[in-house]
């Protein structure tokens, strides 16, 4: 797999593509793009059957190790790749360490390992054990192990440690990569740590070997993942992103993960970031909301996002977003989805995810188009205005609702036990 960028700019929006993908010679994945966020290997609420109804285009699925760590035993006997194992063989897979949709608990560092907070408790991952998992999962792309446990308020000591760790893991992983079979052709991406300290960022960039085997870089250590990332403003991260991009080779893919709001995404695209993920769609779905922000530089002024739980939609038989061609909008109504989320039926989040992911993918299509015809600033302005004008009580409530969620997977598990309100008619037979 190769990343080919159209213009070797630094802090400017750019078009590029991942090409020459192993076993898929005709596939071209255009950037800027968002990888499809998964938990436990599946897009939340979406089975492979439904995924095919959502899109026919090839995509990258992002596989966070934190929710797939327990696949280790089976992957050591399974002959296929992680994408095949999770039932998404039509997708390209990308292994990431942490889960952008879920808050990563800070701290608990030990020498030579990073803590991974799995469902089964804390697991310490060293570069060696990480690379062993990489060789078992056989992803098409993966990030080298890094210590990204910093945020805007991290003390200097933690920042320094994260840089030292990241440099160390980077080297250890690369050394191992050379000796691994099966992942030689995987697209390898390094991580740049250093929090909001430009000196530390420089130290990290200088410390890791910028060699040809690295296809791209993750700007790590900006946040601790989870819904709160949505609240971070572009101004706060701007200096770090500008600085890091200026110090990276312009031929390399640049990635930033997390559930950023679309206004920040546009700002990051303006700065030259190529790769994101759809964890934002996940947190929006979990708060029963549908994305309706404009994705067209000439678009109408819809609301930024609809909270379908609200009573206003009880008798609204129109689609989530008029003109949207997704399955949820073409066949199902706001009223039905409102009803489903209010009675806690599983189909509610299924329909919301179909729309939200579809909308988000169209957003990125539009971003690429706007870069192509030079109208990205227009789109940025449009989305920005819409976002700020809808920053009324509703939107704040929506966002806060997301932040209050602790672990939706656990919430689901207990909901399974409670949601059964249908009549038990079967007596257990012998």
């Amino acid at each position, binding site marked *: 797999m190769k990343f080919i960028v159209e213009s070797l700019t630094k802090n400017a929006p750019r078009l590029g593509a991942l090409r020459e993908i192993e076993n898929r010679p005709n596939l071209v994945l255009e950037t800027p793009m968002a990888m499809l966020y998964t*938990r*436990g*290997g*599946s*897009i*939340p*609420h*979406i*089975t*492979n*059957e*439904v995924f095919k*109804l959502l899109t026919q285009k090839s995509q990258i699925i992002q596989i966070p190790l934190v929710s797939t760590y*327990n*696949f280790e*035993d*089976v992957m050591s*006997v*399974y002959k296929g790749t992680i994408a095949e*194992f*999770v*039932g998404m063989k039509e997708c390209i897979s990308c292994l990431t360490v942490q889960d952008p949709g879920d808050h990563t608990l800070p701290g608990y560092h030990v020498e030579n390992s990073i803590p991974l907070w799995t*469902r089964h408790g804390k697991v310490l991952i060293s570069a060696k054990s990480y690379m062993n998992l990489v060789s078992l999962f056989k992803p098409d792309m993966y990030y080298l192990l890094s210590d990204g446990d910093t945020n805007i308020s991290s003390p200097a000591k933690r920042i320094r440690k994260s840089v030292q760790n990241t440099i160390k893991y980077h080297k250890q992983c690369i050394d191992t990569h050379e000796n691994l079979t099966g992942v030689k052709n995987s697209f390898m991406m390094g991580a740049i740590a250093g929090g909001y300290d430009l000196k530390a960022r420089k130290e990290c960039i200088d410390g890791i070997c910028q060699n040809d085997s690295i296809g791209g870089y993750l700007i790590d250590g900006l946040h601790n993942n989870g819904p709160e990332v949505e609240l971070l403003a572009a101004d706060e991260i701007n200096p770090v992103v500008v600085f890091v991009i200026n110090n990276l080779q312009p031929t390399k893919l640049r990635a930033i993960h997390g559930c950023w709001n679309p206004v920040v995404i546009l700002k990051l695209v303006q700065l030259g970031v190529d790769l994101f993920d759809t964890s934002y769609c996940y947190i929006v779905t979990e708060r029963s909301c549908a994305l309706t922000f404009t994705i067209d530089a000439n678009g109408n002024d819809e609301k930024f996002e609809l909270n379908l739980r609200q009573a206003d939609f*009880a*008798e609204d*038989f129109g689609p989530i977003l008029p003109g949207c061609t997704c*399955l949820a909008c073409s*066949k*199902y*109504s706001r*009223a*039905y989805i409102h*009803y*489903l989320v*209010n*009675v806690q*039926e*599983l*189909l509610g*989040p*299924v*329909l919301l995810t179909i729309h939200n992911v579809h909308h988000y993918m169209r957003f990125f299509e539009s971003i690429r188009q706007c870069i192509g015809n030079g109208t990205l600033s227009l789109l940025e302005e449009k989305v920005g205005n819409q976002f700020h004008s809808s920053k009324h009580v509703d939107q704040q409530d929506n966002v806060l609702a997301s932040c209050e969620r602790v672990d939706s*997977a656990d919430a*689901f*598990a207990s909901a*399974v036990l409670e949601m*059964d*309100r*249908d*009549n*038990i*008619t*079967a*007596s257990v*037979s*012998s």
Partner: protein
Amino acid sequence: MSSRHPLVFHVLAECKISKARVSKMILPHGEVDTPVFMPVGTQGTLKGLLTEQLDNLGVQIMLANTYHLGIKPGVEILKKAGGLHKFMNWNCALLTDSGGFQMVSLLKLAVITEKGVQFRSLNASKSEIVLTPEHSIEIQNVIGADIIMQLDDVVKTTSSDDKRIEEAMYRTTRWLDRCMQSHKRVEDQNIFPIVQGTLNTKLRSLSAKAHMKRDVRGFAIGGLSGGESKDEFWKMVNLSTDILPKNKPRYLMGVGFAIDLVVCTALGVDMYDCVFPTRTARFGCALVMTGQLNLKQKMYKTDLTPIDKDCDCSTCKTYTRSYLHHIATIHTVSCHLLTVHNVAFQLRLMRNIRESIKENKFVEFVQSFMVDLHPNKDYPNWVIDALQAVGIQLK
């Protein structure tokens, strides 16, 4: 479709030994091949599946629950939506129950009088609702299912209060007449009476015979599958199908275990519903011809085979037991995958039953099904007895 016949029932083939038969039931929203298992979409959605997935599975008819839909979204919204078909984006046939079954499951909250059933709603408002036969039909007319159920007076199947059973049986017939009288959509909705009488042979016969005098196009056998012994259960089913006319469909309410479907089809039943296949899916269980797999068990951790190699559902084509083991009861996707498989399992079983009847091999089908399920031939006595009653000997 002639406006006078919203249900046409053609018996296509009959087993030469047992009472099993294959038929085609033509309803306003499509044809249904019987014997049929109807998956239960209590709240106007089949547990996380898109109606596009139900089409892929070949679901021809599903069930929805009047009690739940009457509370939420409520009659006014369903009316404005133009009925449940439009509201939930489902173009095939629907059947609604009357809401009466909740009398048993929520008995502590309900008071039954000649007028109807008084419920206390389960939702936060705790509002009181009186469900009369007229009101049940009014809601069901708004929902707009192809087949609707009369409100019946349900007594616990295991009740020993003969006076109460008798009262409920007669009241059920009186309520049938009130239901039929208030039914406003006779041209496109079929009302089914429910044969009651719990485990009392005399009362059940009386109930069936009384309901046969009414102008209806099919019958439900109710008041069973409520904790009674299997010996009593099959005898009541057999008695009911002996009495009910052969040219109309017979619907056995609340039955859905594979073995029950096979036995009751031999006894002449055409329609079934049960929440079990979809409910057990949500707890990580997958149905197979030899029983069910609890995929949470450690033994499936590295099992790289599909749930059932002979199953052609999208889950078995794409996913291994091992993957399902890792996500079962943790991620909603596991519910969806197992629900798809379990519904596919039920439909495949019914398709195999229908084909065997058509090919005049139903007896062989039953024999081999039972051996698969009980390789040591330790068949339950009730199965041996029930099948013997219709001329089938197990090998």
